[in-house]
């Protein structure tokens, strides 16, 4: 049985992991529907009354402007995947590259510089860093993405660095060096693929972190600038709930919870499937 078959078999047996996978896939289908223009397109249309209750026309009621909360919650699935995918993929890739280089050249000045950069970024409180980046970029809509990618890579970098330091003394790497393959080729073809289990788990963890961060940043006014997201809906709801209008709050928080739960369950199951003996942290 090949490694990937064994991992898949492990995953299949993990009931909560499979639940997570199904949830994530369901949300991904919704996001794809929005991308293709099939779902949630009426999210900004203000054709209802103010705070209408749930009805056949407005499934989750309307907000203060008379917009359809169901459509907004559905469109926000796409916003979440836009942010989550971009941040998770780029930050994990950055962590993989920097971590691999640091691990390969461990104890050199290159390694030292990467560790120093990681130490610096880990020392600046995250929301303050976002504020600083937003300040420097003068309110550009992607300040949030830049800040997340620039800081989320550090965990992946640390894990990949440790793994590469282990791998580089293994026989197949030593043989590759002995026959004179260039360092970069060995890293890209033989070393990095062996860290894919770390990268997969870290991507799902970074996805969760990105969506959670978007919510807080949007509430603070540093997040999504135009469009709609669960964070913006929750920010809207903070005043509404005190007046007894719960539709915005309930739809955004429940969908957010379902997606995060799905990803967390999936990340756990992936971790266990790759490495059943290891105690997950």
């Amino acid at each position, binding site marked *: 049985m090949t490694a990937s078959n064994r991992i898949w078999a492990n995953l299949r047996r993990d009931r909560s992991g499979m639940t997570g996978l199904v949830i994530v896939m369901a949300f991904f289908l919704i996001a794809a529907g929005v991308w293709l223009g099939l779902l949630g397109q009426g999210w900004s249309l203000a054709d209802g009354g103010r705070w209408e209750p749930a009805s056949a026309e407005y499934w989750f009621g309307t907000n203060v402007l008379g917009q359809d909360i169901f459509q907004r919650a559905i469109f926000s699935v796409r916003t979440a995947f836009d942010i989550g995918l971009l941040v998770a993929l780029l930050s994990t890739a950055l962590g993989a590259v920097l971590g691999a280089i640091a691990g390969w050249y461990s104890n050199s000045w290159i390694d030292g510089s990467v560790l120093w950069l990681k130490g*610096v970024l880990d020392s600046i409180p995250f929301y303050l860093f976002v504020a600083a980046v937003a300040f420097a970029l003068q309110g550009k809509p992607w300040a949030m993405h830049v800040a997340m990618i620039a800081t989320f890579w550090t965990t992946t970098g640390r894990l990949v660095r440790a793994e590469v330091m282990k791998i580089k003394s293994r026989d197949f790497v030593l043989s590759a060096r002995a026959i004179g393959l260039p360092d970069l080729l060995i890293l890209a073809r033989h070393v990095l693929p062996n860290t894919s289990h770390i990268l997969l788990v870290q991507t799902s963890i970074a996805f969760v972190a990105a969506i959670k961060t978007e919510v807080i940043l949007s509430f603070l006014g540093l997040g999504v600038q135009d469009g709609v997201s669960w964070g913006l809906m929750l920010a809207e709801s*903070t005043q509404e709930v005190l007046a007894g209008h719960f539709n915005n709050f309930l739809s955004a928080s429940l969908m957010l919870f379902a997606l995060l*739960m799905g990803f967390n369950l999936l990340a756990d199951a992936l971790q266990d499937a790759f490495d059943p003996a290891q105690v997950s942290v």
Partner: protein
Amino acid sequence: MQYLLRKSLHGLLLILGVTLVSFILMVWFGPDQTYTLIGKNASAEQIEELRHQLGYDQSFLKRYADYLLSLVTLDLGSSNSSGEAVSRILARTVPVSLALMIPGFILGNLFGIALGLSAARRRGQWVDRVIGGLSVTGMSISFLVIIILLQLLLSTPYGLNLFPVRGWQVVDLPSYLYYVTVPSLSLILVTLGYNTRFYRAVFVEESGKDHITTARAYGVPPAVIMWKHVLKNSMVPIITRIMFSIPLVVISGSLLIETYFGIPGVGKVTFDAITSGDQPILKAVVGLTAVAFVLIQLLTDLFYRLVDPRIA
């Protein structure tokens, strides 16, 4: 001694790094302040004069050195919007934030350790599985959602209506408890899932070690093993965890909690500075907190050295 020197050098390099990052983002690339600060119909000389005061005609290194000097001497200038000295603003607001955040931060870790211990003790049994499931659930709820829910349940007529919706009029212990409870509970709930899971993993790993097996074989009662051997030997990861979560939980948390509950701490001041583009406050807060955190890390390292002779 050599260890001390190496650690200090390491800390110094980190401090240079964090100050450099905040300098580049907020001073070097930051928006030009000239026209926010100067009045209408300013003459060319006045503009020139102000630009000179702000250091815009200086070199990168000179301006970075000035920034460093201002952090060291705590001569941080004054707020663009209120004109109050930044050092006075900080002296007024930092104690409020500490009083607000410390109880929840400590309790969140204590509860996490307690739950982690009870799960690790019954590894694989239903208690462990329930605690594990609750942790993942906790990790999947947004901080903002927790705050809104607790506010609804505890501070409004829709729930128990026991505590204030927002504000901070603290004069004595009862009023302190009155205002601090809901924010603290939010902080505990948002950190508890992550803490429990982390501490459980630490304790499970420690329980698998040889000296624990030996102690068990000698018939040492399980409770004694947990308290005396597992917990005590896990102190290094526990302290590391606590120290390293300070910037995320305490500082970033105070930004959200104080903004939400309208509490006049350093987080609220920072939020206002973000929305109004008040550069002197922002660069002081970012620079100082990052430096303070590097110092905390340094002290933690030295502390390990004191409590655990194995660490070199």
